[in-house]
């Protein structure tokens, strides 16, 4: 798994971006096929590649230019810490990162022309069948609750065994559920779709249950790309979600 630049893309020293498919000698970008990438390593946001197995670094805009931001510990607000710096540490450790590709230490990158895509989004496009519908944890909890009630009747029959993964998934969905009803969450987050927020991102917001907008941008870096569009909307949505949470 490549850690740098990905397959089929390279950047020239003068800072222009080229695809090996359509690279032009004079450095001009092809208007159609080229997908510009930064010359930093946190490229998973920028380009769409089927074989990409890059893990997500914490996003370009997020890392400090010298890539040496202090690595904050748990759940601290406000400071940017470079995920990639931790990976540098693991690189020095010499193991662990080999088979799970993670981006190398960020250098602080130029902006990209293409809107950033998060890994779940990429995966959703690639791997899940087209007729699949993503579910928030709260929606899944409600669905599984209904099935559980049916299963309670079935489980009286000793021949029928309830699979372990059902129990685990049901517990997980119930416990991870911050909100009262899925419907109310959907009503609050649905309008964000009109402003370029994808289903995957909406689900991540619902599942995480963030308290502040900074938390949202830290944990769902792809939203930063459309920050100007969605900042006020996401803030409003967070306030509305906080009301539902409080009433639980």
């Amino acid at each position: 798994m490549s850690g740098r630049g990905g397959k089929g893309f390279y950047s020239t020293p003068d800072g222009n971006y080229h695809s090996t498919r359509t690279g032009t000698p004079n450095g001009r970008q092809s208007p159609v096929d080229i997908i510009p990438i930064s010359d930093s390593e946190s490229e998973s946001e920028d380009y769409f590649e089927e074989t990409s197995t890059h893990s997500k670094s914490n996003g370009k805009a997020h890392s400090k230019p010298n890539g040496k931001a202090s690595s904050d510990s748990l759940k601290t607000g406000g400071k940017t810490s470079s995920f990639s710096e931790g990976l540098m540490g693991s690189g020095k450790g010499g193991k662990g990162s080999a088979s799970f590709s993670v981006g190398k230490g960020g250098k602080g990158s130029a902006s990209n022309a293409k809107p950033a895509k998060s890994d779940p989004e990429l995966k959703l496009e690639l791997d899940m069948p087209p007729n699949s519908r993503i579910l928030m944890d709260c929606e899944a909890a409600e669905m599984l609750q209904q099935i559980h009630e049916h299963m309670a009747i079935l489980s009286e029959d000793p021949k029928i065994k309830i699979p372990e993964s059902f129990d685990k998934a049901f517990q997980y969905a119930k416990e991870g559920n911050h909100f009262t009803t899925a419907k109310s969450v959907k009503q609050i987050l649905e309008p964000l779709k009109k402003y370029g927020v994808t289903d995957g991102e909406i689900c991540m917001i619902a599942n995480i249950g963030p308290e502040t907008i900074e938390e949202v941008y830290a944990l769902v870096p792809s939203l930063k790309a459309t920050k100007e569009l969605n900042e006020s909307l996401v803030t409003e949505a967070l306030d509305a979600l906080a009301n539902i949470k409080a009433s639980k």
Partner: protein
Amino acid sequence: MFFHIVLERNMQLHPRHFGPHLRDKLVAKLMKDVEGTCSGRHGFVVAITGVEDVGKGLIREGTGFVTFPVKYQCVVFRPFKGEILEAVVTMVNKMGFFAEAGPVQIFVSNHLIPDDMEFQSGDVPNYTTSDGSVKIQKESEVRLKIIGTRVDATEIFCIGTIKDDYLGIISDPGAAS
């Protein structure tokens, strides 16, 4: 992340099941075969929510078994890279800790645990900050980010990190709430 998807499977039924309850027997067999399994492509099949369509059966030559193509809806759970999950720690050792989120196992290497947390061995092995304010041990709830998944035919295994903003411990079983 949970998904609600439509899958298709060819179910083989022995002639002894043929009769007025053929469809029920087919659905029961489907549930028995599919629920609780994991495929690398779709993730863990948590539960079947409905059967959309049962196609015409084809009698197999020589055996008498009949193959029915069945389309069904199910809830699956599949982790993705970049996803943020809340998981419960199941084991802690000096290499890192294992956590569980639903049916998925996630490993967080010590290289992806913040540098100011150190492994403390003992009866209850844990990772603790230098000032002792934060402790990750068995049954702790942590928020982590998945940075890698390995899929094979029947299993998904994940690697996670807590070395990032807004990640780390949510609740400590030892602390007073």
